[in-house]
């Protein structure tokens, strides 16, 4: 592993999270079934264009998830995987947990979008455990093993200035060779046999800079 550690004050500013979310939204095709991970990935649903309809799956037994309810519409029996109140859209349905995970594990979810701590050049993902504290995995391992396409939405570097895109993950894996594409604040990259292939580069940075903050081969 290359020992990259950038002084975070020196970092070039990349896309903000809303811009990243809109890029992902543009890449989700019409009529796809999508599971958005808790946190930053939830932003994606706000940027879906009117030329397409996307159906959201929440692993706690909800297909056809809608936006957050108004204060007076909150039903604590209608929540998402992050345990926050949500709504259900016309054409939605409820199911039990085994059926809900059949959708995931059986390969019926077209895209899942997840956060990451580390992603390796081989597409290994670590996003469930820092190795410290109480271990808690939730549905992350099922999602990466089952979804047809696993997208990662992440900052390119950790808060401490270390690359998240690495030659080899050091943290406990969520899944091996599961990620298909990474959307960071610096670039959109595919996982390929030859390394991280740049699909789109942030307008403020060069490919050389991207390589300097990535621990793993970058190419265009």
């Amino acid at each position: 592993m290359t020992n990259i550690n950038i002084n975070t004050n020196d970092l070039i500013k990349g896309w903000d999270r809303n811009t990243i979310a809109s890029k992902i939204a543009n890449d989700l095709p019409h009529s796809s079934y999508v599971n958005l991970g808790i946190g930053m990935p939830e932003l994606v649903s706000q940027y879906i264009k009117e030329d397409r309809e996307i159906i959201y799956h929440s692993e706690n037994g909800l297909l056809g998830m809608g936006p957050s309810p108004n204060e007076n519409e909150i039903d604590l029996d209608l929540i998402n995987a992050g345990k926050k109140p949500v709504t259900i859209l016309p054409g939605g349905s409820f199911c039990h947990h085994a059926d809900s995970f059949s959708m995931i594990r059986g390969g019926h979810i077209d895209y899942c979008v997840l956060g990451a701590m580390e992603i390796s050049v081989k597409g290994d993902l670590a996003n469930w455990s820092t190795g410290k504290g109480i271990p808690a995995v939730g549905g992350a391992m099922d999602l990466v093993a089952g979804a047809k396409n696993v997208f990662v939405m992440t900052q390119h570097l950790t808060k401490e200035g270390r690359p998240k895109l690495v030659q080899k993950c050091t943290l406990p894996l969520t899944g091996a060779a599961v990620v298909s594409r990474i959307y960071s604040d610096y670039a959109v990259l595919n996982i390929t046999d030859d390394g991280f292939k740049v699909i789109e580069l942030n307008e403020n940075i060069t490919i050389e800079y991207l390589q300097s903050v990535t621990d793993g081969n970058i190419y265009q």
Partner: protein
Amino acid sequence: MQINKIKKDMTEILSDVFDGATIMVGGFGEAGSPIELLHGLIDKGTRDLTIIANNSGNGRVGLGALIGQRQVKKVICSFARSAKGVTFPELYNKGEIELEVVPQGTLAERIRAAGSGIPGFYTATGVGTPLAEGKEEKFFNGKKYILEEALRADFAFVKAETADRYGNLTYNKTARNFNPIMCMAADTSLVQVKNILEPSEINPEHVITPGIFVQSLINIKNPIIETNAIEEGMTYP
């Protein structure tokens, strides 16, 4: 743009079905059997099919007719000896169609497994019988089980009672049977449905097959009733 899985006619809904395909056919006896879709396949002339179903067809209608047209090379089912079966016994006794017998519950579970990402599971069903021959054995808590593998298909042909444009389905009584799990286990599920409703008209608590498992729908308002058709001596085509 709105999702709309409803196709305009039989030609459109069957357009991707190919020679040599593996097709799951819903229904238990005549209840829930997608007769019009099967007749569509006779019109299309698709051949060398492997059919996964509970039975092997009655009379010369629906699955019985498809088999009679020699479009099926193999049937995987639990019970190929139906009282009103005609075409399958004819071909089977001449050695002109293959049969794989699977216990009914194992058949259902293998289908569900395929839809649920489970490549194999262990079961007590069939242990010590001829149907366990050649199957891997494993002991759990001192009891013997055999390994059964997932059973998938290229297409599922399914009959439902109501649907919306998303492909959410409900069924009528025991016509539910294999239909929901076959929708899960096929790459492409084709559904003939009596009534098409607006999405808001199906209560999300009452959906039996969520639309994620359905690719295409066709509205068949007055499907053939097999018992009556056979009594009337109907044959297809």
